[in-house]
């Protein structure tokens, strides 16, 4: 038995609405009335979720767990799915800052654009964005030393600055372009950008893997090792395709130019640039 909680945004919030309680795993056992009564921080005051949301709950024979569907423009609604551990959250529209931050499991699908800090500090689960993502996707909050530690963020559109900053594990795959500083000070994990990237790729990276296409200028603290076919590439590619992201021109038998860096931080990180030939 799968429980589907289908909610519609009845009015666009004038001020940011902090909705960390809107998680499929938390809402799974609640009635509609209980959901409407959930207190959410609205500006500097508390408001009931029912002031902004209306909808229905359906039961489906197939499947199990809970699925929360949110319909409307949630760009001003922050912290959707924050810390969620299981279930499915589908946002039929844009989502605001911190969506899926500190998430531990389950799946979030965003059919519009996602705000900044998407999946920050997440440790598990999958976030899929069909539109663009904002800055600091999978990053560490300011001052913290480790960002995303596991799970995957799959972005069909473009990503902003500081994608995967200080990330410690997991995967971020971007089909479009990204802005400056992808993989800034990353400790581990994998970032793939299929389009063009802004400058300062992997600046301050300690370990981890950044995969880009050819033609990117790297910092002078990265040095070339070789041209090769990494054994993990086929696995990674098929995993990304399983998550619904098709990469044109990124064949299973691609060659990559391998660069080590950043030399100022030990040189244990790697940047792989897809070989043009």
């Amino acid at each position, binding site marked *: 038995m799968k429980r589907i909680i289908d909610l519609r945004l009845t009015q666009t919030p004038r001020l940011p609405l902090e909705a960390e309680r809107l998680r499929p795993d938390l809402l799974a056992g609640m009635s509609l009335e209980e959901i409407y009564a959930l207190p959410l921080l609205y500006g500097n005051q508390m408001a009931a979720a029912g002031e902004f949301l209306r909808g229905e709950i359906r039961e489906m024979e197939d499947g199990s767990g809970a699925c929360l569907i949110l319909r409307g423009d949630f760009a001003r609604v922050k912290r959707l799915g924050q810390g969620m551990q299981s279930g499915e959250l589908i946002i039929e529209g844009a989502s605001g800052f911190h969506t899926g931050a500190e998430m531990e499991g389950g799946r979030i699908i965003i059919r519009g654009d996602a705000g900044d800090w998407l999946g920050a500090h997440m440790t598990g689960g999958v976030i899929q964005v069909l539109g663009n993502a904002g800055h600091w996707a999978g990053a560490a*909050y*300011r001052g913290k030393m480790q960002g995303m530690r596991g799970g995957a963020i799959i972005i069909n559109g473009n990503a902003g600055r500081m994608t995967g900053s200080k990330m410690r594990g997991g995967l971020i795959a971007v089909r479009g372009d990204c802005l400056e500083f992808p993989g800034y000070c990353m400790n581990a994990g994998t970032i793939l950008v299929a389009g063009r990237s802004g400058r300062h790729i992997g600046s301050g990276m300690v370990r981890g893997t950044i995969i880009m296409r050819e033609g990117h200028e790297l910092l002078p603290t990265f040095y070339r090792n070789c041209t090769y076919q990494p054994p993990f590439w086929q696995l990674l590619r098929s995993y990304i395709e399983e998550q619904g992201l098709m990469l044109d021109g990124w064949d299973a038998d691609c060659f990559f130019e391998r660069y080590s860096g950043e030399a100022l931080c030990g040189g244990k990180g790697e940047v792989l640039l897809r070989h043009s030939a």
Partner: protein
Amino acid sequence: MLKIINGGVYDPLQGLSGQAGTICVGDDGKICDPPSDAAPCDIVDASGCAVMAGGVDIHSHIAGTKVNSARSMCPEDHYDHFKPHTDTTRAGTGFTVPTSFYTGYEYAGQGYTTVFEAAVPPLEARHAHEELLDVPIIDTGTYTLMGNNYMIMQILAEQDPVSRKERLRDLVSWLLTTTKGYAVKVVNPGGVESWKWAQGIQDLDTPVPPFGVTPRQIMTGLAETIRGLGLPHGMHLHCNHLGEAGNYITTLETMRALDGLPFHLTHLQFHAYGQSKKGTLKSAASELADYINGHPNVTFDVGQMVFGPATTMTADAPMQYRLHVVTGHKWINNDVEMESGAGVVPLQYKPKSLVNAIQWCVGLELLLLVKNAWQIILTTDHPNAGPFSAYPQIIRLLMDRDYRASQMEALNPRVGKYTVLAQLAREYTLEEIAIITRSAPAKTLGLPQRGNLRAGSCGDIAAYRIQEDKERMFREPAYVFKDGALVVRDGKAIKSPQGRRLLVEPDCGAVLPDDLVDEFHRYYSITLANFPVQEEYIPRPEVIACK
């Protein structure tokens, strides 16, 4: 008038250890003898409570540039620790480096009423005083950094001993007066300046560029000057070689060099390390405790480590650089022109780390091996070895041997090889706790009206509910009074009065000698007229007389 009745009074200075008694505070905020007539008064029933003087923290970093830099450098310290505002208190955030208002409420919320900011470079004194204006309830004071001061070293290098002594006296007096400081603080004497010249201090007789004076000359010169000026608190000394394996030799040599002079050793835990055959850390607390037990004039505060997050901040810039290199954590370095340096590095102390576990044991060993509680003062060198909010836990570790043993189980198992803590059975009494948290620091600081409950002393009083769990007892005092007014109930601040600023006014010239004025104009980035802290920054001064 206020009357606190039915409490068990702990006042080590008067020899009271739990005897039932009544404490009266007059309308002037001072403790007085019980009146003979039945004058109208507020009565507080403190039955079941231990009534003590307000706590005195001799060494804490609560205001100034490095504290503020640490706040902006460590937003992660603020995400999970916050308190909303109430009708009488402001909101605040932070765990190891709380915001200024929060600091005041938290200290008072543990029964502390007097706290000293331990390291203020003269150039940054205005900042520290301005920030202390926003630390409510508690009385505060600042120590002025002089151990690596260019002008002081210049004078110490002079040949004529008579003129040198007089000129040093004038300079120290001028620095204390213009910075509105309470005591002379010396941090890694000569070591910071030496590091700025890409050198280091080998021992107390290593010459320090550019004048070639040695750490020994700096310490003895300043301590003799302090004795000459009759300052209430001796030289507040952070020795050389903090945190290095084998540094207890430097600490012992320092104590011998200063024998007979007024000084106080701060955060001794960081200076009590021996060196194992492999060159790693081991405890040398017994060696230091032996010396201290034989020299009753030596006082120290412990700087006990607490497991969990900490933010190290000190004027010992070379030590902070080393810490940054060793741990890889973020680092701020600050060069304070002619006067000092500073560094900030956030850390996480872990019981499973052998080095941290040894450090934790060394602090407790010092507390347990030194016999005379009047020589010991409880601190965590907040926030270097841990936040001050951990005092109640340390008190429980001292008073409860079983709890100590249970905490030791979580340590790295190899710690027993390098420490002797497991063999120490001593348990502190409530009277001894009263000594190390209020009476001894007040005595060491030369504050006769604090740390005791005699008639004429400040009406700063804390009443703790006596219970088996000493951590809980000291975390939530039933009542705290500041100058006779109830400011804290059940550990929560309910009033937010402004505290006093403790100052000294040495009766020596408050003018900079002419030749140093030229030096000042040549090298300082500000003019002399902008240097002194104006009186506007000290709305409630309390001048403590020199001896």
